[in-house]
């Protein structure tokens, strides 16, 4: 909320690392693990972990306007969490914030509800070649139900979107443009404001997948001009099982419900059921109360950091990471976008990603290997299995150096 304090500069990485038990507490695992898998899920600061325990031990109750004190209090925390997200995304109203179980559900919700009503035979959905499967498969399933088709904004060799191609890809049949804010494989930050602006000028709805963006950039949905924006709490230093769907109020109100059940209804009879207004209409059943309260705490924690200082700090770590990789023979990093976050995905000539991952793990370095749920993107770059190192706010230069050394040793062993 607006009373969030900003921790005074300078950004102190050691203070920050100490807030993460997974990083500071080497006793936990025997040896510290250099965690370069933050793009898959971020570690959680103690403030978030404690908030969840506190809720379960002292405040536990179901929500939705129960008459008793515990329930009213839980409902208050729940609705304050919605306001926290509203303020975080700079949305106009808290009613534009829907709680889901993750980015994946957020995309599916829109594809099932907005899509069901607005996409018909012959219509087109515009995606990019760098989308995560979460922002591909729900649209494919919609297209299959509706006999619509998918069009693709290509990715250039440097890992940026081919912005020039967009105009010619938009047609009268285009109903929605769904684009990732930041690529989870290339780290590229896309110019989504321009894309959303093009969409709006053609009367096309825009959906932005912010799963990899919210923990690195200031996100202002009104400045971006998108109709929908989605992210997951677990990548934003928060708990698992919680996601956000932001939707412009008029759009949300126009959409039919997704799941049916308690709390999303107004009245129920076997003859006719009427539904609650948004966002309630999209939140059937008992929500992930503790998770949602924990996510709000994660946002409060995150907003204590000055996002510009964080970005500068992360940019520095990222260039050390990229320089390290470029200095190693036979390594090819996918993409070289100018605007990027701390993700580096690479292949090594003559060494399989899986082997590299195994040997890095043996040296206490956690990276992700595989397709990172972006098979079409890897196909575009002509590779199948890759290694991805990704940074978080708590990553430091020592992590990157340890990774560089371990990687060189691994490559030697695989020669």
């Amino acid at each position, binding site marked *: 909320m607006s009373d969030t304090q900003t921790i005074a500069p300078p950004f102190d990485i050691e203070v920050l690392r100490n807030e993460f038990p997974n990083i500071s507490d080497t006793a936990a695992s025997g040896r510290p693990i250099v965690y370069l898998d933050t793009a898959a899920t971020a570690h959680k600061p103690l403030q978030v972990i404690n908030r969840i325990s506190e809720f379960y031990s002292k405040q536990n109750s179901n929500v939705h*306007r*129960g*008459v008793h*004190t515990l329930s*009213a209090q839980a*409902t*208050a925390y729940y*609705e304050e969490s919605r306001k926290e997200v509203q303020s975080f995304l700079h949305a106009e109203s808290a009613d534009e914030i829907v709680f889901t179980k993750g980015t994946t559900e957020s995309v599916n919700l829109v594809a099932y509800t907005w899509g069901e009503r607005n996409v018909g035979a012959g219509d087109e959905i515009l995606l990019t070649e760098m989308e995560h499967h979460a922002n591909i498969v729900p649209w494919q399933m919609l297209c299959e139900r509706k006999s619509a088709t998918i069009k693709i904004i290509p990715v250039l060799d440097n890992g940026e979107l081919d912005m020039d191609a967009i105009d010619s890809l938009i047609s009268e049949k285009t109903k929605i443009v769904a684009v990732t804010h930041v690529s989870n494989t290339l780290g590229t930050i896309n110019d989504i404001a321009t894309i959303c602006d093009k969409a709006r000028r053609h009367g096309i709805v825009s959906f932005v997948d912010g799963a990899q963006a919210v923990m690195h950039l200031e996100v202002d949905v009104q400045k971006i001009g998108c109709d929908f924006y989605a992210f997951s709490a677990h990548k934003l230093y928060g708990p698992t099982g919680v996601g956000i769907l932001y939707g412009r109020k008029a759009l949300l109100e126009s959409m039919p419900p997704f799941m049916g059940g308690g709390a999303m209804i107004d009245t129920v009879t076997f003859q006719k059921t009427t539904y609650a207004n948004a966002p309630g209409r999209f939140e059937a059943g008992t929500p992930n109360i503790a998770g949602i309260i924990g996510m709000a705490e994660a946002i409060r924690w995150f907003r204590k950091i000055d996002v510009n200082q964080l970005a500068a700090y992360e940019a520095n770590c990222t260039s050390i990471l990229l320089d390290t990789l470029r200095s190693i023979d036979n390594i090819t990093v996918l993409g070289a976008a100018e605007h990027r976050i701390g993700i580096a995905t690479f292949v090594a000539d003559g060494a399989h990603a899986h082997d590299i991952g195994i040997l890095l793990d043996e040296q206490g370095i956690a990276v992700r290997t595989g397709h990172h749920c972006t098979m079409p993107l890897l196909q575009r770059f002509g590779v199948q299995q890759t290694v991805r190192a990704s940074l978080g706010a708590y990553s430091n230069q020592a992590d990157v150096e340890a990774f560089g050394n371990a990687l060189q040793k691994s490559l030697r062993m695989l020669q």
Partner: protein
Amino acid sequence: MSNQRVIDQLQLDLESLPDWEDRYAYIISLADRLAPFPEKYRTDTFLVKGCQSRVWLHAEINSGLVTMDADSEALIVKGLVGMLMMIFNNRTPEEILQTTDGFIEVLGLSKHLSQNRSSGLASMIKQIKLFAIAFMAQHA
């Protein structure tokens, strides 16, 4: 009595009652002060949203004053509605809008009148203020 004097009086009355039971008896007694609710308004149109027990509210403007009828099927809620009517009924739109929500705290009623509570009376206050704004716009 001016709006503020009503609130002061209510505060005095409530504070003179140290027992929670007596405070509730007092709130319930305020239900009797409500004028009988005109049956023609007892329809879904005049239902206040978000209240567990049904609450009805009808408002019109008469010679510059916002005149309201209200009712609830639950007794405590009806008493609270009675209290809101003492504060807001037959006031000018300006007077209504000048009454900040501070009185909720002052009267020790946040448990009943704040958001997220099942009584839904927060939405009633909001609706009264929306009426006032609408009437002002209408007569501007």
